[in-house]
């Protein structure tokens, strides 16, 4: 069992942070890599990119949003409980190097994934501008950590309850107009990554995105996580999860993420009835 040693609820309780004891993974993991978690015997294998690792304490941090049965089941796990299985670190680490000025754009729980990458880019000597967004103020996560990990932090909310009233792309456009940016990183919901990539392409800014398609094994064995990048089929689990944002076929990814939506809905509803 992989024990939960710390737990926080964020964003109205719809987003949960877990520090999990996994010393071997914590020792090896690098920013951008993910783990697969399985809560119990009947559970599903769920990939989550790590938000933090602490090799000394031997813990990894994951932050997930409750969207279905599996994440609802995760949410029932308290400090002292644990996951039956945690596998990793999987995927390729982010290629961190000094390029100059970098803009990091995050949305939803993508901010959690963006955090270690942002910090590493800053540590590598880049000037890091961060833009994070949420639907409304209460749903915004990791503001303090992102502030510490970057040089400038810009916040957007869809409803204007905090920071800029509007989408992250509005602020991104402002930044791109004002100064020369050498690299962009965008992690969040697929439409956000799509529109950020469309915009950075206009400004010729190389852009990295981190994808989270449906997976089973996470080791390149099943091909369930395949995505089209520059017309080629890639496996997000071993070739990614990060890809050139200008090359990703987001529309195909959006459709493939819906593969089990009816099953998932049914499963989640049954679980919610049982849980209440």
């Amino acid at each position, binding site marked *: 069992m992989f024990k939960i040693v710390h737990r926080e609820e964020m964003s109205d309780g719809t987003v949960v942070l877990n520090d999990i004891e996994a010393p071997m993974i914590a020792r090896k993991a690098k920013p951008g890599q993910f783990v697969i978690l399985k809560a119990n015997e009947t559970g599903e294998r769920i990939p989550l990119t790590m938000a933090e690792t602490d090799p000394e304490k031997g813990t990894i941090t994951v932050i997930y949003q409750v969207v279905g049965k599996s994440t609802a089941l995760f949410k029932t796990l308290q400090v002292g409980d644990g996951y039956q299985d945690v596998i990793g*670190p999987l995927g390729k680490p982010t290629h961190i190097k000094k390029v100059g000025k970098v803009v990091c754009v995050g949305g939803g729980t993508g901010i959690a994934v963006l955090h270690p990458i942002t910090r590493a880019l800053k540590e590598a000597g880049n000037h890091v501008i961060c833009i994070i967004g949420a639907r409304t103020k209460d749903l915004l996560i990791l503001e303090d950590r992102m502030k510490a990990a970057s040089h400038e932090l810009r916040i957007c909310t869809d409803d204007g309850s905090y920071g800029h009233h509007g989408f992250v792309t509005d602020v991104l456009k402002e930044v791109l107009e004002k100064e020369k940016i050498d690299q962009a990183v965008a992690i969040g919901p697929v439409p956000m990554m799509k529109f950020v990539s469309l915009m950075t392409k206009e400004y010729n800014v190389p852009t990295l995105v981190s994808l989270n398609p449906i997976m089973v094994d996470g080791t390149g064995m099943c091909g369930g996580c395949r995505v089209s990048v520059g017309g080629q089929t890639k496996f997000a689990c071993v070739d990614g999860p990060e890809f050139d944002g200008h090359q990703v076929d987001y529309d195909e990814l959006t459709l*493939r993420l819906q593969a089990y939506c009816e099953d998932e809905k049914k499963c989640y509803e049954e679980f919610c009835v049982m849980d209440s």
Partner: protein
Amino acid sequence: MAQEATKKVKREKIPRQAMPEQKAKVRAKNFDEVPFGYTPETAVKEAQRCLQCKKPSCVAGCPVGIDIPGFIQLIKEENFTGAIRHIWQKNSLPAVCGRVCPQEIQCEGVCILAKKEEPVAIGNLERFAADWERENGTGALPPKAEPTGKRVAVVGSGPAGLTVAGDLIVKGHEVTVFEAFHKPGGVLIYGIPEFRLPKEIVAQEVNFLERLGVKVECNQVVGRTITIDELFEEGYEAVFIGVGAGLPVLLDVPGKNLIGIYSANEYLTRSNLMKAYRFPEYDTPIIHGKNVVTLGAGNVAMDSARTALRLGAENSRIVYRRSRAEVPARAAEVHHAEEEGVEFFFLAAPTKFIGDDRGRVIGMECLKMELGEPDASGRRRPVPIEGSEFELECDLVIVAVGTGANPILTQSTDGLKLNKWGYIEVDEKTAKTTKKGVWAGGDIVTGSATVILAMGAGRTASDSIHDYLTIGW
């Protein structure tokens, strides 16, 4: 003399004992095992058919060299415990082998009886001995050599790895098996369906090794969680790589990424390892097609097409680009599939998949083929017939046209020589790789093959590892 002659006549009169099995129509709707197994009476009767040849060709036909007449004799004497112990000397996975080995081209294929009548049902008898022990046995373990204090790491818990583990633990070495998945067994767990190999049996075979002292560490992706060089740093003196050929081959035709097009690896892993056939009791979903097409005609294709039937398919079809004569699956698997209602479309290959506006597959376009000159594999090459396009309606496609070498371990290990397809090069006699202290065997060396060939490779490696640990490289 006269008495002996009567005996002989009597013996030859016994026909090969059939193994009772679920009726095709019934079993096509459930995941229970198809054959029921022998009773002690039928097993003894079948054992009486064995001629106890002085120079038994069946033993030579077995990749792990089981003393077949020896264990059959013990069954004949109703010494079932003795029989299983006799098998264990050469094979730590008899319940598995008795079920999934292609006996018709191995031991039974060379049985002397096969020249005149049907061969002795060696596989069925092996299965009987293993099942009897599991259900009625004393649980007593085979003897183990004195501890040597040497530590061996086995990477991958499929048939090759488990064989190495079983061989070396009884020779007194400490063995730890590292498995990437959350359950041990490799292809026996994720690949072969429940109705052919119940997972409980695999779990028991692994448990047998654990009782012998083998440590099994799941959730360890060697190459990611820990590297081979780190295993040496931790004090392991020999490493065996048996990670299988876990890279799916997908077809490169338009529409290949539509929802409802699975690699056989994904389809079978969802159903077998994740138990998606029991969704929503288990959380992993699987697409239930009404009109299912499986591409390819190997054993994996048969497993996929038969799984689709059990998941409620109205039509389960196999589309294969060559003809019936070239089908690589075991005859018994093809027969079982046909009995259950799987239809075969020979000499056809897909040219594109057709999807709806939700990105889901609704059909495929195929071309008819004819056979031309033999290709590199020695089989006649399928050649497309121009203008022969036809469409097949389908809402689920399973691509079972083979697998490749998964690079996750080989790319993270220095000093391993690979061939042009990414498989590990080894010395055939010893299974040694080009890296000191590292052996490899099974599909990661040969490409997709059978359970028993992987076990044979494991045996070669374990003999060599034992020599290395006791004599030197």
